[in-house]
């Protein structure tokens, strides 16, 4: 068990180091200002965000001004979107009636490119945080919704019959049976939504009136052709994405322990 874990960790590190080395070599060979070397990017990242005083945990003012608000927006947007997705997904997945009424409209909304709706968002929500949150939620709700609906729809029929035979209440059925059995699929949706929320956060920071954030910094850097700074933003997003995903997997492993254990039954 432990040995296996160590092996993967080492393997993983090797893969990572190898890829960064290839990247460095590739950019060195290409010598294209649009593709700065990873070492340059790291230096720029340090300058931008991590060269602050020890009292601020080495975070610069720029980091506090850009990274924290972004993460805040992302977290709020993710929480709202995920909740909305789960609730709507369960409703649509469980009730034929709700499905019939909502499916068309939801599928319609799902296909709409948010950039085309910026003006509508603007008149509905105004500048700033509210619009950004609405924007993030609107974008990430779909994977959670669809996967939850799928999970709720494919609950083992005998489980439902068991519920019915023992006349479990609606709430018990929902929380003790349907939700747990839909969880594995829901988690697939949530994991998609998590990194999507990072991406959409960047988009939301392009919206009219934004004045800070990683996405803002990133686009500003591109507009002024500060390409290492733009790449610093990209790498930061990548690192954040990676960290958030690891965090997510920890949660998933806990919540879905039964699922993973039952799956390991076979070698």
């Amino acid at each position: 068990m432990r040995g296996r874990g160590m092996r993967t960790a080492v393997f993983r590190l090797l893969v990572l180091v190898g890829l960064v080395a290839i990247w460095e070599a590739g950019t060195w060979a290409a010598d294209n200002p649009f593709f700065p070397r990873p070492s340059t990017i790291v230096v720029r990242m340090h300058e931008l965000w991590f060269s602050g005083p020890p009292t601020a945990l080495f975070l610069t003012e720029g980091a506090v001004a850009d990274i924290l608000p972004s993460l805040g927006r992302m977290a709020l947007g993710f929480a709202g979107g995920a909740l909305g997705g789960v609730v709507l997904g369960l409703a649509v997945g469980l009730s034929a009636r709700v499905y019939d009424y909502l499916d068309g409209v939801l599928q319609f909304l799902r296909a709409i490119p948010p950039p085309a709706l910026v003006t509508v968002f603007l008149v509905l929500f105004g500048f700033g945080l509210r619009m950004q949150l609405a924007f993030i939620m609107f974008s990430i709700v779909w994977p959670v919704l669809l996967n939850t609906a799928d999970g709720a729809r494919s609950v083992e029929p005998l489980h439902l019959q068991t519920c019915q035979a023992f006349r479990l209440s609606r709430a018990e059925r929902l929380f003790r049976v349907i939700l747990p059995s839909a969880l594995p699929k829901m988690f697939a949706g949530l994991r998609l939504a998590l990194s999507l929320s990072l991406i959409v956060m960047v988009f939301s920071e392009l919206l009219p009136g934004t004045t800070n954030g990683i996405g803002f910094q990133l686009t500003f850097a591109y507009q002024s052709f500060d390409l290492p700074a733009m790449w610093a933003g990209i790498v930061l997003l990548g690192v954040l994405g990676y960290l958030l995903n690891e965090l997510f997997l920890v949660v998933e492993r806990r919540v879905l322990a039964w699922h993973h254990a039952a799956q390991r039954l076979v070698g």
Partner: protein
Amino acid sequence: MLEIDNLSHVYGGGTPNEHHAIDGLNLSVAEGELLCIVGPSGCGKSTLLRSIAGLITPTGGQVKVEGNLVRQTPDNLAVVFQDYSRSLFPWMSVADNVALPLRRKNMDKSRRREAAQEALESVGLEAAGRKYPFQLSGGMQQRVAIARALAYRPTLMLMDEPFGSVDAQTREDLEDLVLKVRGHHQMTIVLITHDIDESVYVGDRVVVLSKAPAHVVGDLKVDLPGPRDQITTREHPDFVHLRAEVGRLVRGHATV
């Protein structure tokens, strides 16, 4: 207690796979009775059970429990499904699986836990409470499903081949357990089995169903001197006679 009136069920009506599972079945079970149902594989026993439990809506006829037409699952009913392993919830420990239905019973948590533990003990699984279903053997899973139904203390218990996956010794213990529980709690029990000896040993009455579409071809009152006992009862001449009778009925040589 239970009235089944001209019950019919057709699966997939109108499709090429249309199948008449039950056809004009009549049956009534008295309060406190333990009725055993035997019949050939695929004849429609499980279908009948599902109709009684209100899990499927029969395509014809009606089922009444305590005088009420069954539309939804009647109150105070418990079912042990034939496919026990699928009817357990894999995300819950064994104890939680057993305790879950008790939430309907206005018991507080510790009472529920106690009741679950008690039921598990009665089926010989006192040590398995904290395990998950997939960590149990087939027979143990089946016993968990039985424990779940027992802990619930229903007034009507439906059991679909509940002892199929346990060894002979445990099976006898469980048969006696059912008999005991029935006596204590005035349950009405409908038990499907393929074991003819078992049907005669535990049943007050044995109903034999025909090949599909199922209808009743034999209905035998089991009048054995009580209390029943695995050794003496099975040696009783009436027992031997009855099991031969049931056997003949099942094989299609109806003499009644």
